[in-house]
């Protein structure tokens, strides 16, 4: 089990975090941006579980925290999809570049 060192797992989770961040900054499609946010949140989940398993296996704090993150991420995704559908109804597109009502 512990043949994979902790640093490898932290590397994966950090890479996922920054892939998510890159996606959030470069993609203009709202659904892809939502996916990027989910990627960020889930990379943190990996972080929590890895810390718990490798460093402090006697308590379950980190795993419980990741359960809360999953719940909150679901709630956020529900709200985000509602917002996106609402925007799609008015703009007929899910490109954020089209949502420029407040540029001046």
């Amino acid at each position: 089990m512990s043949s994979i060192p902790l640093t490898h797992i932290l590397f994966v989770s950090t890479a996922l975090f920054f892939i998510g961040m890159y996606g959030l900054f470069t993609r203009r499609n709202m659904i892809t941006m939502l996916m990027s946010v989910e990627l960020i949140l889930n990379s943190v989940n990996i972080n929590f579980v890895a810390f718990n398993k490798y460093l402090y296996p006697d308590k379950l704090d980190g795993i419980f925290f990741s359960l809360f993150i999953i719940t909150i991420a679901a709630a956020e995704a529900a709200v985000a999809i509602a917002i996106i559908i609402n925007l799609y109804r008015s703009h007929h597109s899910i490109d954020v570049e089209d949502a420029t009502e407040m540029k001046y």
Partner: protein
Amino acid sequence: MNAIILSAILGVILMFSGIFVTSKTAIRNIATAGMALLLLVNIAEQGGFHLFNVNTHNMLVFSKFGLLFNSIAFSATLLFFLVSAKDITNVGINAAEYFALIFFISCGIAIVSSFNSLLLLFLGIEIISIPLYILTGSDKRNLKSNEASLKYFLMGSFSTGIMLLGIALVYGAKASFSMEQMHSSINAGRNAWFYAGLLLVLISMLFKVSAAPFHFWTPDVYDGAPTVFTSFMATIVKAGVFIALVRLFDMSFVGSGYDWQLIIAIVTAATLFIGNITAIFQQSVKRMLAYSSIAQAGFMLFGVFSQNDFSREGIILYTLGYSLATIGIFAVLIKMKDYTFEGFNGLARTEPVLAATTTIFLLSLAGIPLTIGFFAKYFMLASAVKSGSHLWLVIFAILCAAISVYYYFRVIQSMYFKTGLAETEPVTPVFRWLLAGMAAAVIILGIFPNLVLQYLYF
């Protein structure tokens, strides 16, 4: 504990009343009565009366400071309901749901004012944010409202991600989410994970309070959201997140050298500068108030900067003064037909009571003596002087307060000294009396600030 449980129950009750109650007046009355009940129950808890006894395993700690803040936030929300409940029900057809979401936000505020574990901090902040995304976009036919909601969601969830990474690193370093653990180890030894994690949590909290390098979402979101909800977001919610920030770093800077204080000092200076300078160039009063809320956030950051008794008193006073004044101004602004400065021309002639009370609120925001805004600013600056370092920040803040007088007085100037016929929606006498009462409260608390502050100690 009373407030957390009761506000969640009230939120559910209001959601169901959306199904069973069709009259908007009845919904307004239920919501106002519910908020009054919430306030009463919280005051009872301040006096040591607990409705619920829950073992929170030290994850929540109910201090006098947190409970007093709850009371202030709930009374501000009650006032907000009294002056603009009618405007809330006019935003859209789902009147009961808006009130329900506001009660859920109150629940989040009660959590962040008493958290003792990073888990509860995260939950509290999210319980505040998610209903706000919905409230921002609640004007469904309005493109600006939809867009503001999308922007707010993207920024908010991004900063949530940063906060979570920070908490994960702190957990990796310390094996615990407890605040005592954090406070005791903030000065002990150098630990890269711990410091990086704390810095990330700080950054995400600065995002939420719209401090300077992370303030870009604020004007757009505040401008796009329906004006009633902007009023709520800019006052009560912002103060709630500030309390979380103050509690997070409570007393832990003392003796830790200059590192942390310097970061906060730079952020404070940048927030004050950008908020005040940009507010000067605005043509719409609503947008001006959005930037002014950034500038006022700069003053509230002194509460995080200095961390002593003065700053605790200051942040309580600031919350109260800023909420009273801003809720009042927004209540008047909702009644205006035209949101630009020209729209206020000649308001003193058409609606003298509205003009006079708005003047008092604006004077309070600018920090003129005899209003509560003066004492709030005084306590903040005194706390920074008392903390003994970075005196330049105090001088800079005073200069920025002087700049802020310019754009607040522009509104007064157009109301009293410009000719025009300011058009307003019809205003009821009750509304006028409520505004007059709020203005009186601003002045009375400005003369006797101890009326509030005594509850911090007894």
